[in-house]
């Protein structure tokens, strides 16, 4: 089953990538506003903080961690020119190495490697429910004068604590979570949150190469396939067909 799904996804990605020029991606308001929000943070002399939550390379959220790290790279490569550097936080030690690497690559891309320090990516020890991370990020937003907080990856209800700090101290917030609880809080906390699966197509909107556009189109196509499949199953069940 998993091989069939992977094969379909691969075929859809490759076919869509070949036709990337003709594909118009659906609008994702959060990505449309990301550049402006990063610019506002830079122009107000404040920093940007990107938190990857408890996304971890060593468990089932490995690919979420990879997608979040990509968004960290995109944000850092856009906000590199600020007075204050872009900082990152997470609670998985292996993902911490990836976050450091992405920050370094972003600064290298802009020839600002002198600004990069390994401590810009911070590890906060915590489990799946990252309350220590939430406390650390909340403190970091205030201590380091971060004007914009991008929360992407795996967050549970602890996202509410970070969101509360952001709103109370007038920090711009773009939240996201692959967890149901976190996503619900993200919706309540922000006018323009990033919705669950939108994290995985970030590169298609921020660095639109044919493969990234192909991936985003394949994701949409797979979603429609899943919807059709579910409706068909429900219709069959309604008609009394037992599969």
């Amino acid at each position, binding site marked *: 089953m998993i091989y069939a799904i992977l094969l379909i996804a*691969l075929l859809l990605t490759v076919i869509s990538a070949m036709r990337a020029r003709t594909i118009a991606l659906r609008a994702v308001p959060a990505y449309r506003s990301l*550049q402006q929000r990063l610019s506002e943070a830079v122009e107000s002399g404040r920093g940007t903080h990107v938190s990857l939550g408890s996304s971890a390379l060593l468990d089932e959220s490995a690919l979420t961690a990879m997608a979040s790290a990509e968004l960290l790279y995109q944000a850092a490569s856009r906000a590199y020119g600020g007075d204050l550097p872009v900082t990152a936080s997470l609670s998985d030690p292996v993902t911490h190495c990836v976050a450091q690497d992405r920050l370094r*690559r972003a600064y290298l891309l802009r020839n600002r490697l002198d600004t990069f320090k390994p401590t810009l990516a911070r590890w906060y020890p915590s489990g799946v429910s990252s309350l220590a991370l939430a406390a650390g990020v909340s403190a970091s937003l205030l201590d380091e004068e971060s004007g914009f907080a991008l929360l992407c990856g795996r967050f549970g209800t602890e996202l509410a604590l970070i969101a509360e700090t952001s709103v109370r101290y007038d920090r711009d917030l773009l939240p996201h979570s692959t967890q149901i609880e976190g*996503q619900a809080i993200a919706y*309540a906390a922000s006018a323009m949150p990033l919705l669950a699966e939108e994290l995985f197509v970030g590169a298609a909107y921020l*660095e639109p190469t044919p493969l990234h556009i192909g*991936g985003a189109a394949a994701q949409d196509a797979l979603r429609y396939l899943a919807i059709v499949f579910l409706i068909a199953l429900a219709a069959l069940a309604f008609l009394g067909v037992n599969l």
Partner: protein
Amino acid sequence: MTAPAKPRQRLRPGAALLAALTIAIALITLLGLEPVATLPPELNRTLSALSQLFIQLVAVIGAIALLLGVLNLARFHAAQLRSFPRGLYSLLLLIALLGVLLVRALERGGILRIGDGTTATLSLTILDVAQVAVESALAGLIFFALVHGAVRLMRRRVTLWNALFLAALVIVLLGFSPLSDATLLPVLREWLLSVPVSAGARGLLIGVAIGIVVVGVRVLIGRERTFRE
């Protein structure tokens, strides 16, 4: 401040080797974890053993990364000591870190014995008293943050979806309250949780799973940033 420049397309031998290794290891691990019935049983057994070996190696890497994480944390807070009063929290953190490390080392060495001496009683007690208590207190705050978020949502702009969010929150919270015994609220709460909430949650999780598959394909064909640049 502009979008990142288009990445260089020139193939670097190091990146190509890294991509080849990653693709091979990913495929072997996948085949080991999800054996293909049409492959010979002997090959499936070999692939399974190899995938287990890779997973064990990853666990070792995780332990080393944990050490690096602790060092990074200590390094960052050591640098913070220069500023006051912010440095005070960093000082507390460093003292706590060194203290717990010392206690654990003494326990492991058999110098510090509390109770029957077979379990690390003191370090576990420190964890329970400090970490668990503080995390529980923080968890208690989440309820207020949620309600505040819902109210703020309505103050910002009243839309049908915002009103629905607030109504659902109020019904679920009141449904759990002791007052709910005499009303229709528990039934409504159960229906909300088992039908629309459950359906929405599954829809969201299916979306995430599809996104993960697409990113997985990108990694499997070696088009992840780590291998490209």
